[in-house]
């Protein structure tokens, strides 16, 4: 059985202008968890975009008179070891998180899918070689890859994105390949090949649309993973540098030291990370249920 966008196809018949609205409404009705996830994701994106308007303070402004202040009316989520407003830093930190999350997920899933589809479509030697290359990258410990990228290129947002994306590619490739393999065996692809169509045409017309579902699912799954990985890298000191506001950075150093005496420094950024990752996964999971319950994203 081919990958069939089961639930979405049922509402696809509605007129084009109302179609999206209907899809959304239908999704919300059938997958309330997913809808909640999507709402949180949307909120996150809005916060990131509107950080300048929303943040109560300059995220870099220190205030030595208000160091480690507990949550109050002046500082809703308290201040950190430099008297910087935790809420402002979380709000600006969502920019880093969303930037890293979306870039990594998009790059990782796209490149991986292209490679996976090519590997499946061409088969034979190409497949074998691409598979070995992927094996090599897969078996290479993730932390070493990240470390290598960061050590060679230095820290900074762009390099962190690279460090997270590189290990994602082979993982996405594997998933895309197995979905593409299933399609490749379909009679109509065989027919197209027999009819002498160009590879490019077959891939674009027949294979790509059919791996769109797994692609979307990968994209949402990787969004959460990328945010978590960025936090872990920052926690290990391999991510973005101070004083840039970033969630993983906020959990590092002073937050651990003051875990008991000033817990708000660790709790709120931690919650921000968990909530964002949670929401992305919730949404992604439901999307998968809707689009393709058989898909094996990891």
């Amino acid at each position: 059985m081919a990958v069939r966008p089961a639930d979405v196809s049922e509402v696809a018949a509605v007129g084009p202008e109302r179609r999206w609205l209907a899809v959304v409404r239908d999704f919300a009705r059938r997958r309330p968890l997913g809808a909640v996830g999507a709402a949180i994701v949307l909120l996150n994106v809005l916060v990131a975009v509107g950080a300048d308007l929303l943040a109560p303070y300059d995220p870099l402004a220190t205030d030595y008179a208000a160091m480690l202040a507990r949550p109050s009316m002046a500082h809703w989520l308290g201040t950190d070891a430099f008297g910087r407003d935790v809420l402002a830093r979380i709000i600006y930190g969502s920019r880093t998180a969303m930037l890293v999350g979306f870039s990594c997920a998009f790059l990782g899933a796209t490149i991986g899918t292209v490679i996976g589809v090519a590997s499946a479509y061409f088969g034979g030697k190409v497949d074998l070689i691409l598979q070995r290359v992927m094996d090599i990258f897969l078996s290479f410990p993730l932390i070493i890859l990240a470390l290598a990228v960061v050590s060679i290129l230095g820290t900074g947002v762009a390099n962190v994105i690279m460090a997270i994306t590189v290990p994602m590619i082979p993982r996405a490739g594997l998933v895309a390949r197995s979905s593409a393999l299933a399609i490749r065996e379909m009679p109509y692809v065989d027919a197209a090949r027999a009819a002498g169509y160009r590879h490019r045409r077959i891939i674009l017309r027949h294979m790509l649309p059919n791996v769109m579902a797994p692609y979307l699912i990968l994209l949402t799954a990787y969004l959460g993973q990328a945010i978590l990985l960025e936090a872990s890298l920052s926690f290990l000191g391999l991510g973005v540098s101070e004083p840039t506001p970033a969630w993983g950075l906020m959990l590092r150093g002073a937050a651990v030291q003051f875990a008991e005496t000033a817990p708000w420094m660790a709790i709120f950024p931690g919650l921000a990370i968990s909530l964002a990752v949670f929401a992305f996964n919730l949404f992604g999971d439901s999307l998968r249920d809707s689009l393709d319950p058989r898909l094996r994203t990891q």
Partner: protein
Amino acid sequence: MCALKLVLIVALVTLAAAPAAAQDRPRHGGELVFVVPSSPPSYDAHREETFGTIHPIAPHYNTLLRTDPGDRTGSRVVGDLAESWSISRDGRTYTLKLRRGVKFHDGSEMTSRDVKASYDKIIFPPAGVASNRKGEYVVVEAVQAPDPYTVVFRLKWPQASFLNSLASPWNWIYKADILARDMRWYETHVMGTGPFLFVEHVKGSHWVGKRNPNYWDRGKPYLDGYRAIFMTDSAAQVAAIRGERAMIQFRGFSPAERDSLVQALGKRVTVQESPWNCLILVAINHEKKPFDDRRVRRALTLALDRYQGSAALSKIAIVKEVGGVQAPGTPFATPPQELEKLAGYWRDIGKSRAEARRLLKEAGIPDGFSFTYKNRGIPMPYEPVGVWLIDQWRQIGLNVRQEVVEPAAYYGQVLRPGNFEVAADFQCGYTVEPDLDLYKFQSKEISHSNYSRYTDRVLDELYEKQSRATDPEERRRLIREFERRLLDEEAHYLYTLQWHRIIPHSARVRGWTITPSHYLNQQLDTVWLAE
């Protein structure tokens, strides 16, 4: 609430400091369990640079001289294997008398031959053997052993700090016969004269020593043995002390960690604190524009409110004292009234920052001028100090980005090749001694670790003069002059805050005194455990 807690802690600290040493009598027995936040690369302290080698292994050895284990300044030199010493009138010959009847752990007697072989290995290593500390002993012409219990050091010129150098905690006395056979034997084996015998080393996990029953200092050591546990994560270290699975960690904890231990353990914990002879310096690359301009460098130091920084940072990081080129409280430290005259140490920060802005304007630096501060990727205290610096510079209209570089690449890729504009540098010594502390600030042609990359003949000359000055007053004056040129007039380098060492430990641990260095006082012969 918070203030009350702080008062309580301060009270506890002062209370604890007093009775720790005196009164009750040492008691024999028990195993000291301590945490080491690093682990030994090799077992040979002559070639290593880390306390990870000293903390677990020093109890197996003795040095020629050492600092008094009860001296908080870590500067009073007493005998260890040497019983007494005399210095010739010209200050160029040091004659040391060794103790008799000192035995290595294999039962053989320790004599001047062993001392000479050990020091020769450090000062005159044979071809192919690297000795990192050779540079510290360029003054030594020869080491002689005229009879089995006498060692003589002949110097090329008198050096005020030489006695201190013989008390270096790195210069363990090894056995001559073994060195003659294999210069590298000590990298993987232990054979000393010290108070504890080697039992086992489990890589990455722990190190065990037991009491040397034939130790030359009768009645010592008090402990039956010790167990050093290697633990890199500081949260895990705190948990170990707090869960009372370990009694002490000899390097130091942060203020927050101290507070949480005091809060959790109350009377069961004793806190010792001391200025720490380590600090983060800021190297300013003279080869990069506009940092070749002394006005710009002076502006960088004038921007820093060190007094406020001290008050704020000492709550969250292991830095505290504001000082000049010598740690506060030590013989050659800068008196506060003189310190306040140096650029960046003025009491009036408004005036200081106005002057900084004026200098920048004069040097043609536009408002919002941007540069990169490269920082070493070690969280405590590089990270808070970095954030503080950047914030201070922001207040005179400079827009500074931070780039954190992994420690392994930091010296080789950033500092040594001069691949930076402004960057964190570090200095840390086993004893507070101008010769050791000021060496690096000489011109780049002399000092390999002059990362600001300048040539300043005046400084070189001052360095040499103070090193040979045998009269302390004369030396003090020269050091002040050196300091003024280095930190104020030329602002070649910036001094941030002195580190502050905090050791909260189990109240059962007695007979151990904090010093300004985590390299000193680790023989553990005087340490004992209360009931």
